[in-house]
């Protein structure tokens, strides 16, 4: 019976229920598959490709691939982690990731994932994008220069019933998050700090005002434990 609902992640059996993706099941079992655009509460977006695993030599996104019985999934192999490191390097140079001055540092999933994968440097040339920041809202600051286009804000805001954030545009430089108001400013929406969307950004784009840097260095979320350990602990508490 149990054989019918088990797949193997790097040789370890992972139980799953019908319809679960590889990443969902692994996450629930406290096993870490690197990911950035996936969040347990939302539909897989499949854009960051950090969760790429290998099944029979084929690379697939774990967040968007259904688990099936007996599947042998390779996850933390040196080859896959090399590819993930390169994806991270590309994400870093496509934005302005000046961690020392970023309020999200220490609690940022992009940064924590780069630590997990031992990313020492950016390798590629930097784009240094120049996207406007939006400080119009009394409680929240937006700095899209750090956006990794994961769409989680869009999904969360849809769940809030507010549709404040919408993915728009095309292409590497054209694609962006748009604020859904006539002026394009956050202040002219009904966005509130209590919204799901205010708390979902994995990087330092959607930031609460007046709380930045309030957790001392060394005690921030991913100072305490690497992301792989932190997520396993959180999953076991759920």
């Amino acid at each position: 019976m149990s054989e019918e609902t088990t797949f193997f992640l790097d040789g370890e059996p992972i139980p799953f229920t019908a319809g679960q993706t590889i990443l969902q099941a692994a996450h629930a079992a406290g096993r870490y598959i690197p990911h950035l655009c996936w969040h347990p509460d939302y539909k897989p977006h499949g854009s960051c490709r950090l969760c790429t695993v290998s099944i029979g030599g084929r690379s697939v996104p774990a967040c968007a691939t259904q688990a099936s019985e007996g599947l042998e999934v390779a996850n933390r192999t040196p080859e896959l982690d090399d590819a993930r490191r390169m994806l991270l390097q590309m994400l870093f140079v496509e934005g302005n990731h000046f961690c020392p001055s970023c309020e999200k540092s220490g609690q940022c999933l992009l940064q924590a994932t780069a630590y997990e994968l031992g990313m020492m440097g950016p390798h590629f040339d930097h784009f240094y994008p120049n996207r406007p920041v939006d400080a119009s809202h009394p409680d929240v600051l937006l700095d899209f220069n750090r956006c990794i286009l994961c769409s989680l804000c869009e999904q969360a805001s849809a769940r809030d019933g507010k549709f404040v954030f919408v993915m728009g545009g095309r292409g590497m430089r054209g694609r962006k998050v748009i604020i859904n108001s006539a002026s394009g400013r956050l202040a002219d929406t009904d966005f509130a700090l209590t919204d799901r969307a205010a708390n979902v950004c994995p990087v330092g784009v959607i930031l609460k005002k007046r709380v930045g840097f309030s957790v001392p260095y060394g005690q921030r979320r991913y100072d305490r434990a690497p992301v792989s350990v932190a997520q396993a602990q959180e999953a076991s508490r759920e």
Partner: protein
Amino acid sequence: MNDVRKLRIATTSLAGCFGCHMSLLDIDERLFTLLELVEFDRTPLTDIKRCGACDIGLIEGGVCNAENVHVLREFRKNCKILVAVGACAVNGGLPAQRNHLDLRDILEAVYETEGGLARGAHIPNDPELPLPLNQVHPIHEVVKVDYFLPGCPPSGDAIWKFLSDLIAGRTPTLGHDLLHYD
């Protein structure tokens, strides 16, 4: 022990704040252990002005002006292994946050329009001054870099772990407690 040739290390600060050099001093009494293995060539610690043939070059700071380019190339030419030390050398760091601003606007703001300036203050134009670049760049965009040691600054412990790995001939790695970008 004395017949083992000591490794030669050079260090410099380009567009950096010297925080990484201060952090190097934070390896504290391990400096004595280090000095049994290495000797310093050009570095602010020796005040030697030109870089000779070296095994390891440690570069703090990004590239913000013509002199930075010159020094960086001198290091690359003379050092077998070049290391980008700290956030500024790795990705431009805080100085690169001027990259989306117009250079002339910045110079005017700093030297001509800010409050508290002396009457008649103007943008310095002495020919001895290195020309600023339009943008600040990490050093790997100018020369080949062999290793990156991130952090703002990397902690003394991170520098120590990195250097001991490198000197022992291992690929330097930093675990969870030592790898920081901030």
